[in-house]
């Protein structure tokens, strides 16, 4: 290790810290802002819910393929609170609020995806080689 090497290493560490700081500023606030919940039944979009539209609190009934489910929206999060399906997996999934997360009810063919407009990091789905 020469002096130049050490300077480079130190420079990188500083850069990493700055980048982490930058990341927490840009992405964590930016990604959840304007998040939308896209609700699909049998592959078709039936409803989009704007999360983060102020202090919203809403409960509504969603007609699935076989039976209705109850969906709750509160403070930028969405969840299924009640479903007559046997496994209750969608209910146990709980609240979701981050782009890329989803609730999927297989028997009733309901999919709720959180999507975001800008700065979305949910599109990163490749493995670099």
């Amino acid at each position, binding site marked *: 290790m020469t002096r*130049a*090497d050490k300077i480079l290493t130190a420079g990188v560490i500083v850069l990493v810290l700055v*980048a982490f700081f930058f990341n927490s500023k840009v992405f964590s606030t930016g990604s959840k802002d304007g998040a939308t919940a896209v609700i699909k039944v049998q592959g078709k979009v039936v409803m989009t819910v704007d999360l983060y539209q102020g202090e919203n609190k809403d409960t509504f009934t969603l007609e699935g393929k076989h039976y209705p489910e109850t969906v709750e929206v509160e403070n930028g999060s969405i969840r299924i609170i009640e479903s007559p399906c046997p496994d209750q997996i969608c209910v146990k999934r709980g609240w979701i609020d981050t782009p890329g997360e989803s609730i999927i009810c297989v028997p009733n063919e309901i999919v709720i995806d959180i999507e975001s407009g800008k700065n979305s990091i949910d599109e*990163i789905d*490749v493995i*670099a*080689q």
Partner: protein
Amino acid sequence: MAKTHKLVYISLLVTLGTALHIMEAMLPNPFPIPGAKLGLANIVTLITLYLYGFKEGLGVAFLRVLFGSLLSGTIFSLSFMLSLSGALVSTLVMAVLIGFIPAFSIIGVSVAGSLAHNLGQLMTASILIQAAGIFYYLPFLLFFSLPTGFSTGLITRMLLKYLPRESRP
């Protein structure tokens, strides 16, 4: 004679690089984030740069990505583009450091190459996927290029001791 000597050496280096490239693709990712990897194939590029120079280094880097992707079946896919851009950018940066800034040791050059590799890859990825959000990975990748660059640099330094200097043209 020297020409044949060089031809054989370069061929061996390309072969070695291809083998490392494929082997590395088979290894499970040792890091918690996708995209980070050990960069074993970079050792070969680095050796070529030190033994021969920029032109040969670039050639070896290009050929090992080409053959490695051809053999692992990822050619012209997104991962091929990422590999290629990373390899070419890092070779370029390492060659510049070796040629013009003698203050850096092999380890420093290797770390810089590793950084350049990740940066080049990330830029290509952001252009190809059209998602600026991918830069979220930047600090993670930069951070992991320190240990990987350091270790490949160390391995290269050890290897260069055993490689005959007369293999220079």
